[in-house]
């Protein structure tokens, strides 16, 4: 057989890093996963028993959720600034932005916990009706993804203190958590618009 000089360790057919490729493919499949969950909610939310004599969608609190959406969006901004920092070799800024991303992400989770408690108090639980089942499953799965993301971010943050040299000239690890984090954000963008805004459209609620 004909041989070239032995290929270097980092040779790839496309020139792209394996892990980055993996992350994009993984995120693509997660689109399908969340798409199914969103579809299941949208199909089933109407066929639900009423809560306090009105549609369960009346429980959705748009102002509060707008705030939590804003918080998550800003966390994405913090994330991209973290990636930017590591690109420039600025480890100190990397740590600050990673911390802020995790903080804002946790803030979003607190909003979610608050909202879930509110609904349960009003009588809407995961087992109450189809709206409840599908809504809590969808937002719960999303929240779990956010939680995993926060843990990942904090782990990277801790490593940036213990082994900062790992990040010099090597943005891949921050890049990867960044891609995951932005994905979690865009899923929420879809959920906010479709489940909360479109979902409340045309629903009559008493006060």
């Amino acid at each position, binding site marked *: 057989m004909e041989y070239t000089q032995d290929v270097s360790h980092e040779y790839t057919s496309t*020139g792209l890093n394996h892990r980055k490729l993996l992350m994009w493919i993984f995120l693509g499949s997660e689109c399908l996963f969340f798409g199914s969950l969103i579809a299941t909610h949208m199909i089933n939310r109407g066929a639900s028993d009423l809560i306090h004599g009105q549609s369960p969608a009346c429980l959705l609190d748009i102002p509060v959720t707008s705030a939590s959406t804003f918080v998550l969006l800003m966390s*994405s901004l913090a994330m991209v600034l973290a990636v930017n920092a590591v690109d420039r070799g600025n480890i100190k800024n990397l740590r600050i932005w990673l911390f802020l991303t995790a903080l804002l992400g946790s803030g979003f989770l607190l909003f979610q916990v608050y909202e879930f408690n509110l609904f349960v108090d009003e009588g809407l639980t995961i087992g109450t009706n189809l709206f409840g089942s599908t809504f809590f499953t969808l937002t719960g799965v999303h929240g779990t993804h956010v939680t995993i993301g926060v843990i990942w971010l904090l782990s990277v943050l801790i490593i940036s203190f213990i082994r900062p040299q790992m990040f010099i000239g090597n943005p*891949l690890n921050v890049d990867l958590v960044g891609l995951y984090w932005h994905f979690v954000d865009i899923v929420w963008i879809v959920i906010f618009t479709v489940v909360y805004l479109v979902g409340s459209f045309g629903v009559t609620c008493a006060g």
Partner: protein
Amino acid sequence: MVEHRHPTEKPHPQPWFYVAVGIILTVITAIEVAVFYLDIAGSLMMPILIGLSVIKFWMVVAFFMHLKYDHKLFTVFFYWRANFGGRGCAGSNSVVPEF
């Protein structure tokens, strides 16, 4: 293993660019909420809201996730599946009436 930026990737934008994108995203969200509350669009509300969220989705993917500047293969892998997921979502929505 040291990983360097792929040679064909353009140099990354300055921080202010990302802040600008963040501001635009916030403004779009505010518009969405305004359109919802003011109820000015009537039956166009759903397409407007969905259209705005598609723009936000695309901006985060293209700029924050850097997809616009990266190798086309990533776009192929991601959008093919996002397409599938989106179609599934939209398709099942239209097939089964809501109320």
